[in-house]
């Protein structure tokens, strides 16, 4: 049988250890509660901000879709106009000249354009010149040949455009009078007058409008 003092000591030690465990539990759990409250507060701020983000981004899909639809319509119209005016081959060449390599992709509404080899860009510039010449056929500059053939001669495009001007200037420029030669090498030299800039020697008479 153990002595009462030893039994009391064992009980006291056990109580002390249990109290220590409970104290540790209280301290740490209270600290965890404080940290969790801070986390909850931060999450409340996050939720509020995310709510604002959702509210602000709600119309984005519809607006961007509408913008893309408008842009698609514009691209389709411009591509169609380009192909209609320049032809599918030259249209591919023009696009490829502006954006190198883009001609290989072709046009969206013209799948066959992807198989076209882009032509030389020089033809595009020449055709642009001819287009301007055709537009000017109704203008006075082309009055000499308002009903002439369509200028499709790419190689001779510049000459054909020049022929729209009066014949004398373009075909026989040598027959035109020479421009006067001025300067020290001019065939006719005039002596410099000394009285220029000085007071007049004789004032014009009053009442004589004829100047005689």
């Amino acid at each position, binding site marked *: 049988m153990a002595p009462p003092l030893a039994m009391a000591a064992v009980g006291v030690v056990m109580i002390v250890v249990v109290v220590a465990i409970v104290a*540790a539990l209280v301290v740490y759990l209270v600290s965890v509660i404080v940290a969790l409250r801070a986390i909850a507060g931060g999450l409340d701020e996050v939720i509020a901000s995310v709510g604002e983000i959702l509210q602000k981004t709600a119309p984005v899909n519809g*607006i961007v879709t509408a913008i893309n639809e408008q842009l698609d319509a514009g691209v389709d119209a411009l591509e169609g106009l380009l192909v209609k005016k320049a*032809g599918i081959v030259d249209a591919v060449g023009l696009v490829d000249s502006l954006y190198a390599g883009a001609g290989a992709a072709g046009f969206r509404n013209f799948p066959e354009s992807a198989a076209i080899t882009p032509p030389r860009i020089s033809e595009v510039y020449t055709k642009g010149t001819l287009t301007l010449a055709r537009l000017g056929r109704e203008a006075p500059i082309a009055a000499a040949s308002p009903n002439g053939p369509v200028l499709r001669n790419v190689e001779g495009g510049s000459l054909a455009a020049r022929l729209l001007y009066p014949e004398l200037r373009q075909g026989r420029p040598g027959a035109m009078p020479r421009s006067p030669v001025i300067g020290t090498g001019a065939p006719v030299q005039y002596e410099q007058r000394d009285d220029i800039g000085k007071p007049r020697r004789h004032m014009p008479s009053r009442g004589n409008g004829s100047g005689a």
Partner: protein
Amino acid sequence: MTLWWIGDAVLGLVILPVVVYLLHGVLREARAIVPSVRGIAAAAAASSKDLDAGALLVTTQEGATRTIAGVAEYGGSLDVIIDDAD
């Protein structure tokens, strides 16, 4: 009596350190989450502020619509004044 002392020893030398160790780990991880949550809150607030210009998308949409309409009218004029390709 001896078993009582052994129980006290186990309780004080094993159970108590284990409890303290586990609780300390939980507290450390909980405190580590707090700065992350505050960073996320700041980033979300900044992101929300960055999206203030999102309302201008309505204006952009109207501008795009007018631009495309203008391009369409311009293309119509080109269609009239320029000959078609052969």
